[in-house]
C-alpha cells in the first residue's frame, strides 16, 4: 500500500493498472458533472439579465442588480425572518432524539424494547405529502382529532393549520413526531459502542443509573452530537421546501413564506429566473459561510470537525 501521486510516472502507472476502478467511478462522475457541476455554471444567471433566447453566455450582464432588488424588497426581511424562526426553533428540539436514545439504552434488550423501536421509527417512512395530509385531517378544528378532543371538554379548538402565529410550532413539532425515533438510531448506535466494563466499574463505585447516564453515556454521545449539530447549523437557512410548501395556505401565508418557497415561486411559477437564482445563491452562500464558521469554532473548542 503506497500513497498515490508520489510522482507523475507512478500515478500514471497506477491509473493504468487500476483502469477498472475508474470505469466503476465513471457513471457517478459523469452524472455529478452533468447534474451538480453544470448547474453551478448556471449560477452566472444571477448576475445576468437572463433571457432564454440568448442563453446563459449570451445574456447581458446585470451586476448585482437582482441582489439589490431582493435586499430592497419587502420579502427580504420577511422570508429571512420566517426561515430563521423555523430553523432556530428546530434547533431547540435537537436534544430530543438524544434523550430518547438514552432512554432506549436503559431498557433491557427484550420484546418491549424492540417493539418500542419499531414503532418509533415508523412515522419516518410516511411521505411528506401524506404527513401534511394527515396533519390537515387530524388538526382540523371542525372534524379532526384535535377538534374532537377539544369538543370533549366543550371547548373550541384553535385552527392549527390556518394560523400564522402557530405555523412554526406546528411545523417543528410535527417534524419531531415524525422523525424523533429515526434520528435517535445514530445515538443508540453510538451508545452501543460503550465498553461494558465502564458500567461495571461505575456500579462497583456505587454509581446510580442516573450517574452512569450523566458521566458515561452523555460524554460518549458528544462527538456524534457535535458533528450532527454542525451539519444542522450549516443548513440553518435551508429549511426544507417540501413540507413548508405543502403546509402553506392563505391563512398562514405571512409566516410560512421561507427562502426556498420564495425561490420556487418567483423562479418557476413566475419565470423570473435571474432574480430567483440570486435569492438562491444568497441562501447557499450564507449556509456555506455558517458551516465553515461553526466547523472552525468546533475544531478549536472540541477537536470535532467535519474536515
Amino acid at each position, binding site marked *: 500500500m503506497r500513497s498515490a501521486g508520489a510522482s507523475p510516472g507512478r500515478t500514471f502507472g497506477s491509473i493504468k493498472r487500476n483502469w477498472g476502478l475508474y470505469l466503476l467511478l465513471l457513471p457517478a462522475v459523469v452524472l455529478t458533472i452533468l447534474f451538480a457541476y453544470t448547474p453551478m455554471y448556471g449560477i452566472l444567471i444571477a448576475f445576468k439579465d437572463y433571457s432564454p433566447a440568448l442563453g446563459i453566455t449570451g445574456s447581458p450582464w446585470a451586476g448585482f442588480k437582482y441582489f439589490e432588488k431582493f435586499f430592497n424588497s419587502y420579502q427580504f426581511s420577511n422570508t429571512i425572518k420566517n426561515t430563521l424562526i423555523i430553523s432556530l426553533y428546530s434547533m431547540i428540539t435537537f436534544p430530543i432524539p438524544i434523550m430518547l436514545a438514552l432512554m432506549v439504552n436503559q431498557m433491557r434488550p427484550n420484546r418491549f424494547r424492540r417493539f418500542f423501536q419499531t414503532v418509533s421509527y415508523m*412515522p419516518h417512512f410516511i411521505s411528506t405529502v401524506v404527513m401534511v395530509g394527515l396533519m390537515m385531517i387530524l388538526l382540523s378544528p371542525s372534524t379532526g382529532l384535535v377538534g374532537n378532543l377539544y369538543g370533549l371538554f366543550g371547548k373550541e379548538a384553535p385552527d392549527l393549520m390556518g394560523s400564522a402565529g402557530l405555523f412554526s410550532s406546528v411545523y417543528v413539532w410535527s417534524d419531531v413526531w415524525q422523525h424523533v425515533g429515526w434520528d435517535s438510531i445514530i445515538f443508540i448506535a453510538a451508545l452501543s459502542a460503550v465498553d461494558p466494563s465502564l458500567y461495571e466499574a461505575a456500579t462497583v463505585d456505587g454509581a446510580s443509573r442516573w450517574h452512569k447516564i450523566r458521566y458515561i453515556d452523555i460524554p460518549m454521545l458528544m462527538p456524534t452530537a457535535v458533528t450532527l449539530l454542525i451539519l444542522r447549523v450549516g443548513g440553518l437557512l435551508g429549511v426544507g421546501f417540501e413540507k413548508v410548501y405543502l403546509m402553506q395556505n392563505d391563512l398562514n401565508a405571512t409566516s410560512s413564506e421561507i427562502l426556498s418557497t420564495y425561490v420556487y415561486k418567483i423562479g418557476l411559477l413566475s419565470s423570473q429566473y435571474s432574480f430567483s437564482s440570486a435569492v438562491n445563491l444568497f441562501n447557499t452562500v450564507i449556509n456555506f459561510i455558517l458551516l465553515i464558521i461553526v466547523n472552525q469554532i468546533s475544531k478549536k473548542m472540541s477537536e470535532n470537525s467535519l474536515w
Partner: protein
Amino acid sequence: MGTLTPAVKENTGRIKNNRSSDTVMEYVMYAIAVVFLVILMYPLYFIVIASFSDPSAVAGGQVWLFPKGFTLDGYKELLKHQNIWIGYRNTILYTAVGTIIGLAVNISAAYALSRKDLAGRKFLSLFFIFTMFFNGGLIPTFLTIRDLHMYDTFLVMVLPFSVGVYNIIVARTFFQTSIPGDLWEAAQIDGCGNLRYFALVVLPLSKAIIAVLGLWIAVGHWNSYFNALIYLKNPDLHPLQLILRNILITNQMQSGMGTGEAAQIALRLANMMRYSVIIVATVPIMCVYPFVQKYFNQGVMIGAVKE
C-alpha cells in the same frame, strides 16, 4: 451492562440505596415510554379506523377506539379513481428502475473510492462531497435538465439525482471495514482484474450494504414528490405522491373540477377517500419495513462510523 452478580450488588448499603432509586427511575422511564408509544401510534391507528367508518361519525367525533358505522365506501370510491392507479403504476416503475440505477451507480463508485491504491482518491472524494454543501440551486438545475431535453420524461425521475453522496460514504465505509484487502491481493496474483473481482468477489460479500442502500433509495423514490412537481407536466407520468397531493391537500379532483353541485359532490367524495388513500399509499412501505428494520439500523450505524 448489568453483568454484576447480585451478591456484589448487595454488598454495601450505598449500592442498595441506589438500587431502590434505580427502580423508581425504571418505572418512570417505562411510563414515559408507554405515553410516547401512544402519542406515536394513536394518530396512525385513528386513520385506520376512520377509513372503515362512516364519514359523518368521524366528523362528529364518535370514532375513538373502534370503527363506527362500518363501511368500505372510501375504498370503493378509491377503486374508481383512475388517476390513483396511473400514479401507482408510475411510482412502481420509478421505484424499480430508479433503485436499480441508484444501486449500480453508488455501489460501484463507493467501492472504487474505498480502495486505498486508487490514485486521486482524496480529490475524487472531495469532488462528490462538495456537492453536498454547494449546488447550483433550483433554477440553474432546472435549466440544465431542460437543455438536456429531460424535462417531462420518464428519465428525469430516475437518472439525474441518482448519485447520493451520503449513500456513497456509507457504502465506502462498509467496503473499507468488511472486505479484507488481502482478498484483492490474492485475486490479483491469480490474474483477476478489478472488474471481475468486483463482480465475483466483492458484490457477493456485500449483500447487507446492498440491502440497506436499496431500501433507502427505494423509500426515497416511493415518497418522492418534489422532482415530479418541478419536472413533470404530463399527467400520465405523475407519480402517486403528486396525485395524493391533489386529493389530500389541494382538495381538487382532477376530473370533477367545476362549480356548483358537481364540485360539491367531488368534494364529498374526496373527503370520503382521504383516509383510505393514506392507507393505500402508505401500507406497502409499512409492510416491508419491519422485516428489513435491522438492515436499516445497520446502515445508519455504518454511516455513524467516522473514517
